C-alpha cells in the first residue's frame, strides 16, 4: 500500500546507485522534481530507460550519473538535439555512456510486456531498419500459424519507476489524465514506484469509471509536489513552459554554463521551488 512521504524520503527509500530507473512521461507529466532530487542526493551509475529522454535525462547524463540509457528518441521536443547527451555519446564527457536504442513501438511494447509479466514483446517492427544491426536485443519470433517473422524485444522491468500524476486520493490511488503515455505500464512493470502528484483529494468518486487509475497497492511511495512536472505540464493544472525548453538549447550548449545552471537551479534548490515555477503557467482549465 502506497505511503505518503516527502520526495527526499521517497528517493532515498526507493533508489540505489546502479539501479535501472524509468522516469516516464510522454511530453506531459514528466517527473522533473524527482529527477532533480535524485541529482541532489548524488545517486549514480544509473541505467535510465525512457521513450523520450528529454531535458531531464540531458541533466542526469550531463551530471555524470548515467551508465547506460535505453531509449527511442533522444531529443529536445520541438527544439532539436540534446547537447549533453551528444557530448557524452560523441566525446565521452563527463563519462562514456552505453546506449541501447529502440523505436517507440519497441519501447512501448517492451513496457507493455513488463506490465503484463511477460519476458518479451512481439510486434511487427524494425522492417528494414538498421537498429536491428546495432542492438542485439532486437530479435525475432516466428508466428506458429502463418510463419510470419515478427520482431521481439525483452520486456522492460525497471527497479524503480518515477512518474508525476495529477491526483492521489487518501487511500493512495493515483489518477493520470490526458496524454497518459506509458506511465501506467512503467509503474506496473517496476519493482518499486514513486509518484509525485499535483494534488491529494479525499476520494475519486467523481472520476470516470474507466479513467487511468493506479490502485494504491500498486504504488510504493506518493509525494504531494505541486508543479513537479515543470517545465513540462500537467493537464488541468498548468501549461507547458515552452520558453524553458527553448532556453535549454543555449544552456546545454556549453559545459560550464550547464554546470552553473545545475548548481543554481538544481543542486542549491529545494523541491518546493516547483510550485513557484508553475505559478505563472497555471491554466484556467
Amino acid at each position, binding site marked *: 500500500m502506497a505511503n505518503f512521504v516527502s520526495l527526499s524520503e521517497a528517493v532515498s527509500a526507493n533508489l540505489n546507485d546502479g539501479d535501472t530507473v524509468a522516469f516516464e512521461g*510522454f*511530453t*506531459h507529466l514528466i517527473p522533473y522534481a524527482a529527477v532533480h532530487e535524485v541529482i541532489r542526493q548524488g545517486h549514480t551509475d544509473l541505467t535510465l530507460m525512457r*521513450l*523520450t529522454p528529454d531535458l531531464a535525462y540531458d541533466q542526469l547524463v550531463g551530471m555524470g550519473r548515467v551508465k547506460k540509457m535505453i*531509449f*527511442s*528518441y*533522444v*531529443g529536445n*521536443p*520541438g*527544439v532539436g*538535439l*540534446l547537447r549533453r*547527451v*551528444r557530448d557524452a*555519446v*560523441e566525446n565521452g564527457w563527463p563519462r562514456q555512456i552505453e546506449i541501447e*536504442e529502440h*523505436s*517507440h*513501438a519497441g519501447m*512501448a*511494447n517492451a*513496457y*507493455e510486456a513488463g506490465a503484463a509479466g511477460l519476458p518479451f514483446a512481439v*510486434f*511487427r*517492427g*524494425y*522492417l*528494414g*531498419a*538498421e*537498429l536491428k544491426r*546495432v542492438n542485439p536485443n532486437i530479435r525475432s519470433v516466428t508466428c506458429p500459424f502463418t510463419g510470419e*517473422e515478427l520482431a521481439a524485444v525483452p520486456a522492460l522491468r525497471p527497479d524503480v519507476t518515477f512518474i508525476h500524476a495529477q491526483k492521489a486520493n487518501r487511500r493512495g490511488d493515483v489518477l493520470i489524465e*490526458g*496524454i*497518459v*503515455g*506509458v506511465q*501506467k*505500464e512503467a509503474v506496473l512493470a517496476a519493482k518499486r514506484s514513486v509518484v509525485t502528484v499535483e494534488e491529494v483529494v479525499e476520494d475519486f468518486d467523481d472520476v470516470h469509471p474507466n479513467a*487511468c487509475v493506479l490502485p494504491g497497492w500498486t504504488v510504493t511511495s506518493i509525494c504531494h509536489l505541486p508543479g513537479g512536472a515543470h517545465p513540462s*505540464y500537467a*493537464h488541468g493544472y498548468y*501549461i*507547458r*513552459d*515552452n*520558453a524553458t*525548453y527553448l532556453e535549454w538549447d543555449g544552456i546545454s550548449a556549453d559545459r560550464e554554463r550547464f554546470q552553473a545552471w545545475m548548481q543554481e537551479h538544481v543542486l542549491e534548490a529545494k523541491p518546493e521551488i516547483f510550485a513557484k515555477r508553475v505559478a*505563472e*503557467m*497555471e*491554466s*484556467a*482549465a
Partner: protein
Amino acid sequence: MSKLDFTPDEMMTIAAARALKNDDVCFVGIGAPSAACNVARLSHAPDITLIYESGTIGTAPDVLPLSIGDGELCETAVTTVSVPEMFRYWLQGGRVTIGFLGAAQLDRFGNINTTVIGDYDHPKTRMPGGGGAPEIASSCGEIFITCKQSLRTMVEKIDFFTSFGHGDGGDAREKLGITTKGPSLLITDLAVWNTDPVSKEFVVSSLHPGVSREDVQATCGWAVRYADDMDVTPPPTANELKVLRDLKARTKAAHGGAKKEKAA
C-alpha cells in the same frame, strides 16, 4: 528565383497540404509535416483525422504544437489513448492511410536517417533517433516526406537506415515482407517529387513557381530525374496563404511570447 509574394517554405507547406484528402487518416510527424497536415485540415480537408504518436487521435489544434504531446492536442482530440495502444491498435493495426515524415538525411529511394551522422558507434553527430518513424514507415498505407532541399539532407547514401523507404529500389519492400506502399511523395521547398512505379526513386513531377532545374540539382546530392510531363506547382491561393499565415501567427503568439501571454 524571381521575387514572389510567398516564400519557398510556404510553397512547400501548402503543396504538402494539398496532397492530403478529407478522408485520410494521417500519422503526423512533428515540424514541417505538422504544419502541412493542419493547413490541410483548416482548408480543403476539414474532416481529416490527424494522429500524433502521443496518443491523440482526431486532434484539431488551433496552433501548431511545439512537441508531439502538447496539451491542446489532447484537449481537441476525439480520444487520447496510451502510447502502447497507439502503436499496437492504431499504427500496427493498419488503420493509418498516410504517414507524414520529415527527414534529416534522405536518399532517392525515400530511406531516412535521423539517427547518426558518421559511424553508429562513434558518431560525428548524434541525432534524436527514430522515435515512431521506423514503424510509421512500414505500417502506414503510404508515406509522404517533406523537407527543405540541401546537399546535407538529400544525399546519395544515408549514414544509417533509421526508417526504410524503398531500400535500393524496385521490389525491396516486397522482399522484406512489407505490404504497404512506402514513400510515394516528396515535397520540398523547390519541387514536388513522385515515386517512379518501377525503380521506386523520386522523380520531380512539378517545380514550384520560379524554380529552375538547376536550383533543384544544386541542392540535391543525387542526379535528379524529371518526369516526362513536368508541371509547375500551382502557386498558393490567397486562401491557402491566409490559412497558413494565420496559423503561424497564432502559433508564434502562443509559443514565442512572454510567459504571462501563454497562460490560457
